[in-house]
């Protein structure tokens, strides 16, 4: 009886142990062609803007394969392989798409490099001088017409609640607030939310987000609402002007999107650079990493902001103003806030 029970248990265990199998993953050679195949596949299965970019400028990722595959050969150097792979990725026209090698970063920055910057650090210095305050990585001061000025150049740092409370407390007597976002390349979406939360008193729908659920170009989850919740700290109640240029990208683009949903907010400057895809990274057989847009984020009307958000007041830096030490965008913002 005992022997029978033992035999039965051993047979059951043997059956269990043979039921499992390996989870296979396709392997690619660490050759120029192998790295090309892997990179093309990573983007093909994970990139989130194929349909949008096919409609916008006719992107066809299969055609890109046919165009670049013949360019790869076994005798290519590392630098040559990097150059051709970067050229292929540039077809996506996406600032969130980068190829990282030990010697260079493949990039497409045409979304800002092809346009005037509308920003000068030297002009900013004429407004804020040297006795500005610094908190949470931001510079802030009160201009001579009692307009508050907050320079937010990045969202890569966390904003402490206490920091934001003290900033807004200091600026509370001001008639209005300028948030200078120019050349802010982004950072953490959560930081953009933290700052935007100081400008609303109630929950506001600010957009939608979705993610891929499979390898197909159209395998997406349903759209989920993005809700901006008001901060429990000090909240700004007066007019706000956000200054933008083409360098406003990614999380900074998100911040502009949030602010346009709120009352008493104007956006002055140039169209933002865009960057509405939350990026992921993956790795090639040769160890290089590739970053790409994976989760698309939309505005509250369901529109894609990948190529930027238009300002409510398009204003460019005037060369004559600059020559006389004036920043056209700041002056325009002050005019909006005072009147």
């Amino acid at each position, binding site marked *: 009886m005992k022997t029978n029970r033992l035999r039965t248990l051993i047979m059951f265990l043997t059956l*269990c142990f043979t039921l499992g199998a390996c989870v296979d993953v396709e392997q690619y050679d660490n050759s120029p062609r192998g790295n090309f195949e892997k990179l093309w596949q990573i983007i093909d299965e994970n990139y989130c803007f194929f349909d949008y970019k096919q409609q916008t400028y006719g992107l066809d990722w299969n055609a890109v394969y046919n165009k670049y595959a013949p360019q790869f050969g076994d005798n290519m150097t590392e630098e040559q392989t990097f150059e051709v792979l970067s050229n292929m990725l540039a077809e996506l026209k996406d600032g969130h798409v980068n190829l990282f090698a030990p010697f260079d970063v493949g990039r497409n920055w045409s979304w800002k490099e092809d346009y005037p910057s509308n920003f000068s650090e030297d002009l900013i210095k004429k407004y804020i001088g040297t006795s500005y305050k610094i908190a949470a990585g931001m510079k802030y001061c009160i201009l001579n017409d009692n307009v508050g000025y907050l320079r937010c150049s990045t969202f890569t740092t966390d904003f402490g609640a206490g920091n934001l409370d003290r900033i807004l407390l200091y600026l509370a007597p001001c008639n209005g607030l300028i948030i200078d976002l120019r050349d802010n390349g982004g950072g953490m979406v959560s930081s953009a939310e933290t700052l935007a939360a100081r400008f609303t008193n109630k929950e506001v729908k600010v957009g939608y987000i979705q993610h891929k*659920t499979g390898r197909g170009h159209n395998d997406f*989850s349903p759209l989920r609402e993005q809700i901006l919740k008001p901060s429990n700290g000090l909240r700004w109640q007066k007019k706000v002007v956000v200054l933008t240029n083409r360098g406003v990208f990614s999380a900074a683009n998100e911040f502009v999107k949030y602010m346009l949903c709120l009352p008493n907010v104007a956006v002055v400057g140039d169209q933002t650079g865009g960057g509405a895809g939350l990026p992921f990274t993956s790795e090639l057989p040769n160890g290089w990493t590739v970053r790409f847009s994976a989760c698309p984020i939309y505005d509250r009307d369901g529109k894609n902001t990948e190529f930027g958000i238009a300002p409510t007041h398009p204003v460019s830096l005037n060369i004559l103003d600059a020559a006389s030490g004036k920043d056209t965008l700041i002056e325009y913002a002050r005019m909006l806030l005072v009147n």
Partner: protein
Amino acid sequence: MYSFGYGVHYAFGLLQQRLQLQVGARAEANVGFIYNTHNSNNPAQARLFLHFAPSAVASYKVRVANVPLLLRYEVSVPLVGVMFSPNYGQSYYEIFSQGNYDHNIVPTTIASAPSFRQMLTVDFPVLHSTVRLGYLGDIQQSAVNNLKTHVYTHGVVIGLVKRFTLIKIAP
């Protein structure tokens, strides 16, 4: 990563009780994360699962230079369980900052998460304790939410063995 396991086995003695075979099942829980500095928005991959696994243990008593040793081999294969997994392209921002659940607690079977855990160890006495030293091989795989994961562990294990006896007292 932290692993917890609890097993219940039925024991058989062979070769004048020098060889003991134990067959039964284990419940295994694993909590932790893997951090990949290459990744941007998903740098840390949370590892959280609970498995129920049939398992077997073979242990053999020997004496070497008059020192009692216990050679032990243990193996388990998870049969069913549950695990945490983001959906295919879902970011941790969506899950934890936005609270967007999308098939993140996934039931698993031996087909979707074929894994294998084995230990080959030797127990030997040190003062009044028993030390266990040996090799742990832990192969964890999964193919859920269109995501394939592989976590292979080959490690040296060292620990203390404590035996407890449950005594039932009938009133």
